[in-house]
């Protein structure tokens, strides 16, 4: 029995040694030069933005890869890829000076083709970010709420996204990838010559932020202020309609959408998304 125990222990030790060798030798070797991750950061859908204090900031951090990249995974079920994402200031590498909350679930979009070459997009929310030949994009959205950004002092802030694996994470892709920095220019409301325009932008983004966060009453308040400020702007009415629909105030929503319809700037395209909204509300109003 003792001999068998010794053999078992020896076997286990051998297996552990092999596993250790694999962890240290094979795992880093996946990080070859053919693996090319890339990170993109957008703030309010742009690479730079000019705001007044109190304008929410929505940061989309997207992880992708080059067209020539070999396949690899970032993160896993124990340490999801989006938990490796952070925002930091440039060049100080300090954390950003406002509270960030994650908005919505992280999303993974995959570009696929069937046997006939027909392209399609699929969407999921996997923990491991699969990256291969530029065919996958994994995005997580962070936001700074209006009350947080209301405390920002005027000035220019440069922020970049970073994905970095911890030193103990030996499996999968290991390394660090940083995005280009986005610039956030915060203007002093008392001295900005674009105050009116920036204030409208502040309200529109606030409405959008609250809609995204499911805080429809606050979204409605922002949208009403925006409509008062810009009664001929179709976007204001669309946001008001969205907020009202969220509050199940369907009649008001329909009214707002129909006003928006009349105010839409001329365009070669039909306002399909607005028509869809109207249909959705009309449908909801049906018995």
């Amino acid at each position: 029995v003792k001999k068998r125990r010794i053999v078992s222990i020896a076997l286990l030790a051998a297996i552990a040694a092999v596993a250790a060798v694999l962890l240290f030798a094979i795992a880093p070797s996946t990080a070859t030069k053919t693996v090319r991750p890339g990170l993109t950061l957008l703030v309010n859908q742009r690479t730079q933005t000019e705001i007044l204090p109190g304008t929410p900031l929505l940061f989309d951090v997207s992880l992708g890869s080059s067209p020539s990249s070999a396949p690899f995974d970032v993160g896993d079920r124990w340490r999801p890829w989006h938990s490796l994402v952070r925002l930091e200031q440039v060049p100080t590498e300090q954390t950003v000076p406002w509270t960030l909350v994650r908005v919505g679930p992280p999303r993974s979009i995959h570009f696929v083709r069937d046997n006939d070459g027909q392209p399609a997009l699929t969407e999921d929310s996997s923990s491991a970010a699969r990256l291969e030949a530029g065919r996958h994009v994994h995005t997580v959205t962070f936001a700074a709420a209006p009350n947080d950004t209301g405390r920002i002092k005027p000035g220019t802030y440069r922020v970049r996204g970073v994905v970095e694996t911890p030193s103990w994470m030996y499996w999968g892709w290991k390394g660090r990838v940083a995005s280009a920095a986005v610039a956030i220019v915060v203007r002093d409301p008392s001295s900005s010559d674009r105050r009116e325009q920036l204030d409208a932008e502040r309200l529109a983004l606030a409405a959008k932020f609250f809609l995204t966060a499911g805080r429809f009453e606050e979204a409605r308040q922002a949208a009403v202020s925006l409509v008062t400020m810009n009664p001929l702007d179709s976007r204001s009415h669309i946001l008001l309609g969205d907020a009202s629909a969220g509050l199940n105030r369907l009649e008001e929503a329909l009214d707002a959408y129909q006003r928006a319809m009349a105010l839409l700037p001329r365009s070669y395209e039909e306002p399909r998304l607005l028509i869809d909204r109207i249909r959705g509300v009309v449908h909801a109003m049906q018995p």
Partner: protein
Amino acid sequence: MKPHVGWAIAAALTAAVMASGDLTAQSSSSSPHNRRVWTGTIDYREIILNATDTTPIRRPVRYFVNVHQTFRFVSEEVPDQPGFKRWVSRQITWSAYGSSASSIEGYECSGSGSVDLGPADGYDALTTQQEEQLQIPCEERKYTDAAVWAFIPKPDVKVRMPDIDTSMTTCEATRRWTANGARYTLTVSGVQQMNAVVDVDREPYAAFVPEPGHTLTFTARSASGPLRFRFELDRTGTSRFPGYASNANIDDVFFTKHNLASLRGQYANDGPDFVFYPEHFGRVDWARVSLDAAETRVAETAALVTVTAMDYGAVGRLRVYAQPAECEGAGGWQPISFRVGTATREHLDLPLDEDDNLIADALEPYRGIDSGADDDAEPKGNGMAGDGLTAFEESRGFLTRGAGCGPEVTEAVYGDVELNNQSQVVGWSDEHVRTSPRKKDLFVHTPDPELALVVPAVDRATGLDVHVICEAHYAGNESRVVNFTLQDSGVRAWQGTTVANPEPQHGIYLEPADSLGLRGVAIPVTEGLIGPPKLTRSVKVTKPQPGSSNAAHRGRLEYADLIHTVVHEIGHSIGVPHHGDLVDNWRLVLGRQNVVTWLSLQQHAGGPPDFTQPNSLPEMPESYYAAVEGRQYLTSLLVAPGGDCVEGAADAIYYKDNQFVGCTADSIARRGQQNSGDFECPMRYSGSDYYEAPGTIARFLWTGLVTYRHRAWKRDLHGHLVDAWGGTLLKYRNDLDRDGQGILCSRIDGTGINSPSEQDHNGNAGRDRPCVDFLVVNDRAASGTP
């Protein structure tokens, strides 16, 4: 006899034989009548900018002359006439090109050759026959059939005779001077001929493709004893194209990425495209190394030199000179030739370019194609060949997006790269592609990675090669010029060979949009114009709002819809209109258009809507809606009873004076308009509320206030302003319709829901040409259009 003694004897014999060979070579170079060899070059290059012809219109004239000559004259003293020289051999080699042309006529002169003028008493003595031999033929060219008189200067293309100062002493340093616009060099040595040559290994030479950091190595050998060698990259024969690819200027990452770090700060954007990279030259062996010249320190029987490309379209000319031992430390440099296979050349063109199109022969797709050609044939589109990029620009290639467009840093990528304390490098993951000269290329920039993911879908739908680029790759979203390196610097030709088009080619700016109410829109540079990319300022696309729990906020838009939207809007940005519309001289000619609430007020007369008019009624004070600056707004369309609108249906909500008056709708699809034609075409609209029954036409009936009877709430909402439309309007089968997911239609016939054998909702496309016949990528097609 012991073996090693045998080896020693053999070695001694071999050395003796070699020594005798050397002696033979040296003795053959001795000069019984003080023979001297005079070598040199003559370069004449003239470009006249802003020249015009003499017509009142004063058409621009492009004037360009480039003549390169080398010569090798041999003189000897005449023993009984001290101080008198006799010329025993006078060899001149030349290549010349000149062009002077307006858009209607001009001259083109070109020729090359080599001749030995033979013995003479004076070095510049020519017989009439010899003068004729040195003539460069010129042809007069007419580019129009119209009889137009215009004086255009004839290019000054001629072979010049060397100017030899016979007082020059043997081994004197090479003289260089300029006279009458021509640059002269002159060298004299006493050795009749050195037995030295550069043997070019044909295989790597033929396989060489220029790329920054890529090298070619050559060995110069002397069979006539040790010589010093000088390697020169001919300044007139080596290109200096701005940047290093068709859309990339020299930047910091260039040096890191291509292992050229020691040239950082020394190499300019318009530096020579082939260089001697200092890192390849040790200080011990080389006396002088600059970007365009390298000279060995001591006389050797062989010297190995490495030439480095700095541009994906680099063109160069390598010359090698040797200095005889008798001239060491002084001048007397004589050119030595290259041996490529069985051929001997006085200089070596880099890369191998036997079809003389400035493009490496190793790049098979461009072989035999004129460098200025822009005649990509596929897809045919509207018949305008080309994609706005010359074959040279396509072969020089483009940087395309790698992962993201900003600085990226990963341990994986930088594992074996010395970054000189750079923490981040912009553009590291850019990838270079040489585009096809036969297939049209389209370049799209978007800052949004999710939109970038979708862009490759455009290639299948259009047949184009579609490339995603960063903003820096088309010089900014305002400029959008994808071939800016040559365009912005005004370089259109090199050595008389066209390398760029007269006009730039534009890319497409694709950006995410927010709360437009539209799925997407192509925004024209000039309202109402549609055509090649230069006419579209940007393409805006609305993305789904995945974070929202609000279905209305999210709308019906899903990520899967993005492919259709992106393809559809980019389709507009390359000239393809909706199925009911036409394009006339890049102006959009609208069909009747679907009836929609948004446009209804301009559609009462039945014709196309007027986008310039506001969708408002001037005076309806009793309206349910509060006035906004005196305007009243339509609630929706009203579909009058008849057809599929019957009281009791879900959408039968409008009453007037307690009488049912019609159904609500926001759109009525009209035959031959946006929803018509090929079911799978991505330019087709899908979905509507009602459609015109085959053979019928929707007619405007009236505008007025109606009551919305809300059955669920059991109450009436008064004062809804509607446009009433009648005719035979049938309920649209949205359950059978979806976005077109195929390729641009090649027939106008209605298929699927539009097929006469199926639901026949919208019939054939309302124009005589399918979408593929509108596609246009080449910006030159709309030349002159703002």
